């Protein structure tokens, strides 16, 4: 069965744009933390403005998902992790990522609301939040095998990894080489692990069935 409702395509395109914007916000955050003296006003401002723009496209993604009649998602599916009958695990990761993102945004904008150390740790959790969003996009996304979407996802992951290694790790390397070497290795291994999982899962035929698409929505063989 194939949806021919425009909201289904809005949902998918807005989801991909949200992942890309989230990546841009992450890279700007890394640049701000790793190069505090380089254009602080511009980089911090761009980080904040793009974070708010991400909320707009993320909101469009969620609203389109609720109103699109194809996957039959309701408010509970998009607010309660793993409650959905449609690709529940992968959709649930998107919900968790949205909560992490909301926490990071609401404690930073319009003003910082936590003590500095708690705020920094909450912001660091967004590395995981971003990764969870990428895995959600690969696992739930109906367009993983679409060449354009795949290229954009690979570009997003590559730019986040390069920014982390070239800016954050390079800047902190001298302070504690072992810790940052370990973090660099972990980031590379996580990226490789995600790529291997994607190649063996979402990029394979039959993923729609194994990812938990309800039987009535699957195309007849």
């Amino acid at each position, binding site marked *: 069965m194939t949806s021919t409702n425009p909201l289904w395509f809005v949902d998918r395109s807005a989801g*991909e744009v949200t992942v890309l914007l989230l990546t841009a916000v992450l890279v700007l955050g890394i640049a701000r933390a790793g190069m505090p003296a380089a254009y602080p006003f511009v980089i911090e401002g761009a980080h904040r403005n793009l974070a708010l723009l991400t909320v707009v496209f993320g909101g469009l993604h969620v609203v389109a998902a609720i109103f699109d009649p194809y996957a039959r998602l309701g408010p509970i599916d998009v607010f309660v992790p793993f409650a959905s009958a449609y690709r529940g695990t992968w959709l649930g990761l998107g919900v968790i990522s949205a909560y992490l993102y909301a926490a990071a945004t609401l404690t930073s904008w319009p003003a910082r609301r936590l003590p500095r150390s708690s705020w920094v740790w909450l912001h660091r959790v967004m590395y995981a939040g971003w990764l969870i969003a990428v895995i959600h996009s690969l696992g739930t996304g109906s367009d993983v095998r679409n060449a354009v979407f795949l290229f954009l996802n690979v570009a997003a992951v590559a730019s986040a990894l390069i920014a982390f290694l070239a800016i954050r790790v390079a800047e902190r390397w001298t302070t504690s080489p072992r810790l940052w070497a370990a973090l660099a290795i972990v980031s590379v291994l996580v990226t490789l692990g995600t790529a291997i999982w994607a190649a063996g899962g979402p990029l394979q035929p039959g993923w729609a069935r194994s990812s938990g698409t309800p039987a009535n929505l699957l195309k007849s063989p």
Partner: protein
Amino acid sequence: MSEPGHEPWREAMRAEEQRRRRRPADQRAVLRRITITTAVAAAGLNAALFVQAGLEQIGPGDFQNLIVSTVYGLFPGAGLQPASQAPTPSPGAKAVATTGGS
């Protein structure tokens, strides 16, 4: 001898101070440009991915029909009609019977 207040170093300092005072305004303009460009690019990419996802899944013909019927649904007076609907004869026109070609 140069007059007090007109020494080269004072001039240089004044120029540097002016440059420093100007910087936030310049940077604000750069930030505004970055934000607007990203917002426009994101909206454009969203539209492009919308089309790409539609074309990939249901093909050009059906996707065109989907867009036309959506526009027709939203703006019934826009003059667009989905291709699946037969054209209606103008008032007073005589119906012409057609047969299949040989």
